[in-house]
């Protein structure tokens, strides 16, 4: 059912592109007229996610300080891990959305007040996202985590994880790798169609996406091949 809906959706988009171009007319998805609304909407969502991250940090600290025993200890650990994961995800999405909002403002020349608000939101989101790994100490207080300022932070964190954690990471990363590959490929094809039918070249984006795809796959295949 899910596959059918996805196929229907993709078919619809391709069909729409073909139908739009069949009569020789062109179309443009102009974002300039709604640039203000887009930047306000994305900033608002970003602020909401920053708020959610803060709430999760407070909950994380509060729960971590509670003393429990027996099966409740497992429930507590599970809840701490979920709070940490949700906080990290919210702060990451918040950074991405605030960057998009800032990009819209920079490109479309919006008011200085909006620029300052969006820049402040982006800065706050980036700060929370940068600090988010340090809250892992509330989930695993017994572990000696490397500092987030450490140049080899990611490598050290991976090295100190055990086989169960690596198993979970592998499942997650493999799924996001395959989805990332497919989505980038679809995005490239979409940009090609858009460029052809709208006469607005998306060549730069297509080349960037192609380079990302090549680097991603080279990195993966070289790592696997050289073992």
């Amino acid at each position, binding site marked *: 059912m899910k596959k059918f809906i996805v196929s229907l959706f993709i078919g619809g988009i391709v069909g729409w592109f073909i139908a739009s171009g069949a009569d020789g007319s062109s179309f443009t998805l102009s974002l300039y007229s709604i640039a203000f609304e887009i930047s306000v909407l994305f900033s608002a969502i970003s602020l909401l996610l920053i708020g959610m991250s803060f709430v999760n940090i407070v909950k994380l600290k509060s729960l971590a300080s509670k003393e429990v025993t*027996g*099966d409740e*200890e*497992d429930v507590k*650990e*599970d809840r701490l*891990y979920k709070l940490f994961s949700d906080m990290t995800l919210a702060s990451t999405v918040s950074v991405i959305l605030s960057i998009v909002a800032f990009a819209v403002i920079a490109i479309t020349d919006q008011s200085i007040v909006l620029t300052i608000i969006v820049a402040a939101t982006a800065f706050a989101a980036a700060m929370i996202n940068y600090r988010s790994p340090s809250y892992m100490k509330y989930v*695993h207080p*017994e572990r000696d985590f490397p500092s987030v300022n450490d140049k080899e932070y990611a490598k050290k964190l991976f090295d100190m*994880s*055990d*086989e*169960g*954690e690596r*198993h*979970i990471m592998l499942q997650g990363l493999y799924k996001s790798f395959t989805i990332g590959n497919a989505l980038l490929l679809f995005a490239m094809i979409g940009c090609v169609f858009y460029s052809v039918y709208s006469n607005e070249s998306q060549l730069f984006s297509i080349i960037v996406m192609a380079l990302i795809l090549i680097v991603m796959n080279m990195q993966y295949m070289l790592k696997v091949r050289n073992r």
Partner: protein
Amino acid sequence: MKTRLKELRARHGLNQTELAKLAKVSRQTISLLEREELIPSLLIAVRISKILQEPVDEIFIFEEGEL
């Protein structure tokens, strides 16, 4: 692979977090092992075997076709 880990852990009055600390692994690893979603390394299997005072093959049971 089948496992009696949950049953044996409960018999020793340990929760997942406590067993994880004793076996020097994360609670996620114990949870995955109990759900039979991960085959443990020899090191972890032996550590758990010592904690629960049971032979490895009494905790992690492989079927004939798997060996």
